[in-house]
């Protein structure tokens, strides 16, 4: 591991100033991903700016009935917060489905959003990887890709984003606030992750050196009836091979409002707007749910070894929506 300096930031401006002065500096939150990547040499920071003592550890109600979540709130604290459990159950379920109790106690909200892909080629320095070493190639396209993307990928990168939390936040229309050397800014989470294209190394819309300060959840009555379901290769403590965050409001047997996001299928949490368009106003039944899933997955471009994900996601979407609708279509 490269030697590095360490500083604890006590105010946001100070932290941002330190990062602006050194392109090799990184913010340190829980360290669950960054420290791991430093051990393997994927990350080689010259300076770590520890942000956990910044005054960003609170979860507060907003004027419009939403929640404003500080970036250093741990995954555990967010998951068990009474208001989150009550009004955004899919978010609690997503958080609790991620990692282990130990890691959730360490990991922060900001860090979770910025975690890197677990693609084996990205973390293996002996391999080419367009995300880690731009222009070097993507061995996953013709190699190990059974857990790689089926939506929104390119020939340059087929890695998936590993966050569970991000999938729920995407369904819930969260907004990411940041502070940068040029001042504060905010970006909806659906625009936070950049399209892969030919620049898979550019992952987010954050300006260089920017610090995520908050994630805001708008009030969403529909979210009271929301769910996150994750499929993985073992019962617990594994990354998703597919996941769904959904919220459904039904009136007179028809879908009044639907929110749907898919996980582990793309380089970012995937908002399923094509599916939502099919759902909205349609009868809340199995045929509609299947049509919605098919509409979204029509854009899927599976690789030779991950075609199962298309079937998996179709079934998962139908199953979760059916559960939310409180009816059995079998």
């Amino acid at each position, binding site marked *: 591991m490269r030697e*590095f300096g360490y500083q604890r930031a006590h105010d946001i401006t100070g932290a941002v100033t330190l990062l602006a002065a050194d392109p090799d500096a990184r913010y340190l939150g829980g360290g669950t991903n960054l420290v791991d990547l430093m051990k393997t040499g994927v990350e080689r920071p010259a300076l770590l700016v520890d942000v956990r003592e910044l005054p960003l550890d609170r979860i507060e109600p907003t004027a419009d009935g939403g929640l404003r979540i500080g970036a250093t709130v741990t995954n555990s604290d967010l998951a068990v917060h009474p208001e989150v459990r009550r009004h955004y159950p899919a978010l609690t379920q997503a958080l609790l489905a991620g990692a282990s109790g130990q*890691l959730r106690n360490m990991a922060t909200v900001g860090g979770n959003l910025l975690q890197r892909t677990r693609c084996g080629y990205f973390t293996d320095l002996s391999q080419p990887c367009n995300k880690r070493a731009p222009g070097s190639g993507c061995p996953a396209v013709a190699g190990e890709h059974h857990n790689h993307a089926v939506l929104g990928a390119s020939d340059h990168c087929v890695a998936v984003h590993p966050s569970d939390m991000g999938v729920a936040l995407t369904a819930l229309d969260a907004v990411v606030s940041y502070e940068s050397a040029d001042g504060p800014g905010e970006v909806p989470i659906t625009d936070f992750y950049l399209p892969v294209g030919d620049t898979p190394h550019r992952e987010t819309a954050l300006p260089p050196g920017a610090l995520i300060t908050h994630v805001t959840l708008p009030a969403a009555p529909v979210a009271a009836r929301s769910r996150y379901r994750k499929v993985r290769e073992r019962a617990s403590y594994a990354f998703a091979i597919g996941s769904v965050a959904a919220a459904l409001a039904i009136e007179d047997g028809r879908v009044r409002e639907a929110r749907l996001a898919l996980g582990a299928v793309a380089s970012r949490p995937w908002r399923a707007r094509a599916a939502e368009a099919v759902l909205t106003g349609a009868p809340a039944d199995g045929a509609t749910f299947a049509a919605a899933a098919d509409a979204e997955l029509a854009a899927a471009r599976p690789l030779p070894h991950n075609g199962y994900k298309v079937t998996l996601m179709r079934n998962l979407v139908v199953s979760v929506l059916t559960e939310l609708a409180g009816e059995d279509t079998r």
Partner: protein
Amino acid sequence: MAPAPSSTSSAITLNINGEKHHLPIDHRTTLLDALRERLDLTGTKKGCDQGQCGACTVLVDQRRVVSCLSLAVAAEGREITTIEGVADADELHPVQQAFLDLDGYQCGYCTPGQVCSAIAVIEEHAAGWPSAVTDDPAPEAGPPPLTPEEIRERMSGNLCRCGAYVSIVQAVARAAGEYAAEGSTAGKHAAEGHAAGKDAAEEAAA
């Protein structure tokens, strides 16, 4: 302490099991390596060293964490509890005693991490935290019974290569029940967890 930005090491103080330890430390040192290699606290074990096995679990500010992904320098100012600090002098912690009585291990390598994790699991459950297998996470639903399924999920961050899981689940269930019975901090919040813990012990033993 405010080290110069260019410095790659610091003189730090770690508060471990109620005792202060002063040591110069290279920033690259994990809390795990500081405990084992610098402070001779070798009860905490190194398994995968990448956050996947839980053998290095310790408590930091009463929360369970993996010490292999924690930097020692970042742990300064926090209250660290390792397996060496969980017993009350010669009296084993109830979780330790339950692991001993119910054979919650085979080779013992993962045991310090299992015990530290289980102590936190019982506290988390007593505080009303739901888990991924809890049917309804709403606070109004109340804390879920600490069934074997709940224990397995909550302990999933601790791997045991010997496969002693069956008795580990029994030990955690029994300790949780005893906590509640003794009216410990955990028990005060979890009258329900008490009965559930015993149920789980019986169910797991069946």
